[in-house]
């Protein structure tokens, strides 16, 4: 099991468009990744799960997954989470 910690940069948090893009990226990776905030953990490939966590700018989340090649996937997801997608 590999895990990474990321701090959300998008001004509006992981809502709306950034959330949809994140979920898309997780599903495109083909790995079962989870996302945890404040002790609640959901599948990161679920839009309903991700938006249920109400993740705001500055929140810290932990993403986890396992399997061959998971490290590269988690790294790229961290880059995604730590980019401000609301900046024009």
């Amino acid at each position, binding site marked *: 099991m590999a895990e990474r910690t990321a701090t959300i940069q998008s001004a509006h*948090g992981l809502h709306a468009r950034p959330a*949809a893009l994140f979920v898309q990226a997780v599903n495109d990776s083909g790995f079962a990744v989870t996302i945890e905030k404040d002790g609640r953990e959901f599948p990161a*490939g*679920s839009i309903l*799960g991700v938006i*249920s966590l109400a993740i705001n700018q500055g929140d810290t989340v932990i993403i986890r997954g396992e399997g061959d090649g998971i490290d590269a996937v988690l790294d790229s997801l961290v880059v995604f989470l730590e980019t401000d997608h609301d900046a024009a």
Partner: protein
Amino acid sequence: MQERVLTGVGVGRGIVVGDVRRMPDPLPEPAQVNSTLGPDAELARATSALGETAQDLRERGAIAGGLAQEVLDALAMMADDQMLVSDVKNRIDRGATAERAVFDAFAGFAAILTMAGGYMAERAGDLGDVANRVIAKIMGVPAPGVPQSDVPFILVARDLAPADTALLNFDIVRALITTDGGPTSHTAILAREKGLPAIVGAKSAEVLVDGDLVLVDAAAGEIILHPSAVRIEAGLAEAEARKAARDSATGPGRLADGHEVQLLANVGSAKSAAAAVEAQAEGVGLFRTEFLFLDSDTAPSIAEQAEQYEAVFAQFPGKKVVVRVLDAGADKPLSFLTDAGEENPALGRRGIRALFAHEEILRDQLTAIAQAASKTQAHVWVMAPMIANAEETKKFVALCTELGISVSGAMIEIPSAALLADHILAEAAFVSIGTNDLTQYTVAADRLLGTVADLQDAWNPAVLKLIREVGRAGVATSKPVGVCGEAAADPQLAVVLIGLGVTSLSMSPVALGDVRAELGRYTLAEAQALAEKVLTARNAVEARAIVAGR
């Protein structure tokens, strides 16, 4: 076939002939019964309906493109969401039917989003919409929502929700008819904004079925079922004549005797400001600033705000732009400004009350407005929403003065403010009447609630008497009295408002032509006489009839 006349409240002046398409009624809640098919069959029904719904939404998104595609893609993601699918499966394993499992699973997630509030609470409505599509597919009935069609039609519905209208194609939908809903319903507001003829609250339109030929005359509030060839010809000729009158009325607003009436536009962004310029608006009577703050967890910075304001101001050099400071609360909650959990948010700390409670947000906004104003040639005025009395007005005006805004005023939306307009105008440079809220507070009927829609009508003589008080105060103090609610966009009501002492009208740009043309038919004395007569009406229906029978 025999002609039949169905009546309702007309919106706009258009006349349209076309075939009826009905919007299917909402689905009933699926019964809570144990499955007789067994879990495997139920799961197959549910998963194929979920998958097909997601695919439908994605296909429609691909056709629509742009912002609509983003919305539809997001809905599609909800339909085939893995947590949702496993929740549905669990419910089916415990004996639920496919439709009930889908209904409950979506409701569960909707409840989570509603609790989260703000932006996510709005998405809860989307979930309900997706759930209905899936359930309709399982049950093999037409999906709720606007019928899909390539040929133009006249849409008949009980009432339309924002989710229904977001994707309306105005090349295909030629007119709207609702059996419920009133003049301030979402349907009516949308129709006015888009210049689409509509008849709302037409109870007798329940008889209309798909394929019925109807003539819709919005100015008369009439739907003619099975119109004769003669009737159609006359109707279309009248439509041409009205269009010609509208097109020939150009330039600044004035009555038949030359009395000037400033015709202004309501705008909500730099983009809608361009439409206002095109429609020959003499300025902006209501610049809504909420667009900058919605979907936000914090207020935008002064620099960010100033940039957006400047983009609007710059389009009106030498003209008036009236900015309404942030109007949050009630139907427009903002997490950083309004209190959650008020039992009665329309009567709670909304509008200027919320801003006074968070004065730093108000100060930042006024500072940004003053900065943007100093960079352009627009005459920028600022007004506060939900003012109740002279004390609040005085406090707001003082803040504006301190932060460099010289012309500041109050909105009249609360009956107390209308009755005390003389005292308010002693403090303010101008007032502007928001007729939607003024109507809802006068008749104590939520403007967005269909069940009390028949009460929400700005033609109500009680509302007009309050407006008369404001008009009188304006005349006595020689200060401008504007109207920036839906009422200003109703050409006949606009005449009455001028007769009551209103000096400027602000509306969605598309309504300007019809109002300009109608004002040109009356002198000030005639408008005043008409207003006096309308004030003797017992109710809104009688008030309308007095003007129609003039």
